[in-house]
């Protein structure tokens, strides 16, 4: 981290004067490409609502962790989200209900359970507020290390599995006729989303987390002509929005997560105007 601090100090930017801003800046540089990458597959796989539901289940996991007095409830939340994600996949494959109905069922149950546990025995809900709004400025060097490792893991995962995942979402039957285990591929990706969403919740907040999971991919989809452009644009949009949002939040004194989301939304609006039409 000291190397990073030295680099920041060498830059003639007032905004990077405080250590918490240096931390937040590095976290944004690691987190936004991660969201950009995941977003491509979430949008292609029509999983936007699903990743939202996972955010809710992460909150429940955090409440469970807190009630049992576990020092860092995040890991309980990760385990709960992964369990929730796999349970959802299992039920979806065996139910004749539409996916959005099932997401509604799971999402509302998770939130209800989370609030139930959090307020059990007359406890106050206030201490959970930080998970709703999130605060990237509170990110610690240790957490940045974890973020870096997750980014590395997701990039490796992408290099190894993006062909199979893309084919599975483009045409599941064709994928399975070419030897791709569609069910396993989807379950692994689902678990990956669960882990990323849950870890990011304390920095970005449950209420706006999903916009970061959906907007980069949705923006890129408006203008990309092939999968290479789709991935590239999504990661670049996410990165630029992250930096611009953080700077904006510094000068306006607003939540960083919210301003990053709004910059992304602005990019979406612009890309919509330039969207590809027909061939």
């Amino acid at each position: 981290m000291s190397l990073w601090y030295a680099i920041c100090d060498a830059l003639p930017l007032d905004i990077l004067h405080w250590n918490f801003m240096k931390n937040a800046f590095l976290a944004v540089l690691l987190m936004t490409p991660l969201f950009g990458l995941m977003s491509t597959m979430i949008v292609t796989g029509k999983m936007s609502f699903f990743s939202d539901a996972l955010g809710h289940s992460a909150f429940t996991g955090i409440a469970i962790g807190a009630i049992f007095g576990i020092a860092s409830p995040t890991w309980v939340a990760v385990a709960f989200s992964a369990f929730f994600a796999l349970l959802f996949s299992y039920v979806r494959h065996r139910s004749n209900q539409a996916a959005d109905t099932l997401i509604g069922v799971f999402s509302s149950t998770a939130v209800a359970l989370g609030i139930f546990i959090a307020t059990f025995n007359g406890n106050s809900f206030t201490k959970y507020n930080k998970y709703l709004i999130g605060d990237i400025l509170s990110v610690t060097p240790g957490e940045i290390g974890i973020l870096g490792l997750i980014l590395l893991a997701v990039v490796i995962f992408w290099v190894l599995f993006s062909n199979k995942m893309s084919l599975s979402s483009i045409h599941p039957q064709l994928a399975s006729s070419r030897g791709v285990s569609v069910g396993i591929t989807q379950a692994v990706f689902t678990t990956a989303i669960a882990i990323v969403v849950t870890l990011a919740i304390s920095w970005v907040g449950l209420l706006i987390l999903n916009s970061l999971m959906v907007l980069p991919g949705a923006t890129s989809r408006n203008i990309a002509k092939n999968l290479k452009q789709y991935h590239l644009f999504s990661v670049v949009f996410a990165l630029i929005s992250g930096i611009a949002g953080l700077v904006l939040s510094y000068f306006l004194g607003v939540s960083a997560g919210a301003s990053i989301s709004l910059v992304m939304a602005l990019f979406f609006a612009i890309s919509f105007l330039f969207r590809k039409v027909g061939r």
Partner: protein
Amino acid sequence: MNIGSHGGSCGHSCCLRIEDLGVKIGNETILEKINLHAHCGELVALIGPNGAGKSTLIKSILGQQDYTGVISFSVPGQRNRKMKIGYVPQSPVFDPGDPVSVADLFCCCMSKRPVFLGASKKMRQTILECLSRVHGEDLINKRIGTLSGGELQRVLLALALEPIPNILILDEPLSGVDVEGMESLMEMLDEIRRDYDLSILMTTHDFGMLDRYADQVVLIDRGIICQGSPKDVLESKAFHAVFHRKGGGV
């Protein structure tokens, strides 16, 4: 009914053999007593009303469905040859906004290099060679959601022909394709089976083309109820009984 009476005997040509195949899902019998031989170079059309079990039979051959009975493939002079299957799924409707090009689709299926890096020069060359088999080189950069029904079928066909299979299976290749497209697709299939000596198994609801292109037509309704040359089957009592009773695209 004489089974496998077309396209030469099993002794002289490679052959896909389906013997006494049955499929049960729960307590319901979906297929029973299916016996079918498809020789190399032969085009076999599977016809039948909706829900007759055509798709289940295809899934069984693809190994995606549990079944009883035997599915085997033999080549004269070679024992236990593993059959390579090329599969063209029923034409899906892609979202015109999908940022997936034809080249991307090939890369996902054929390349180990991650698709988000784009196709290598060598891969692009291979894709062009594959597309040339269906006269579709100009489609390589098009997005799959913008292809017409006929173009999409050709792309999926080119994909199924790499590597060249022993058996080519097509699920309703003529649905969603205009008359001109149908003609050129059947013409192409005819050319492919002769050039590569492979057998083609296709399901269809369009009977107009069968007389000219199919060697064998198999009418399925849970079991095989009629089998033979297109003329024999299309003029059979069984054919009229099935399609006039249930109404299935005549």
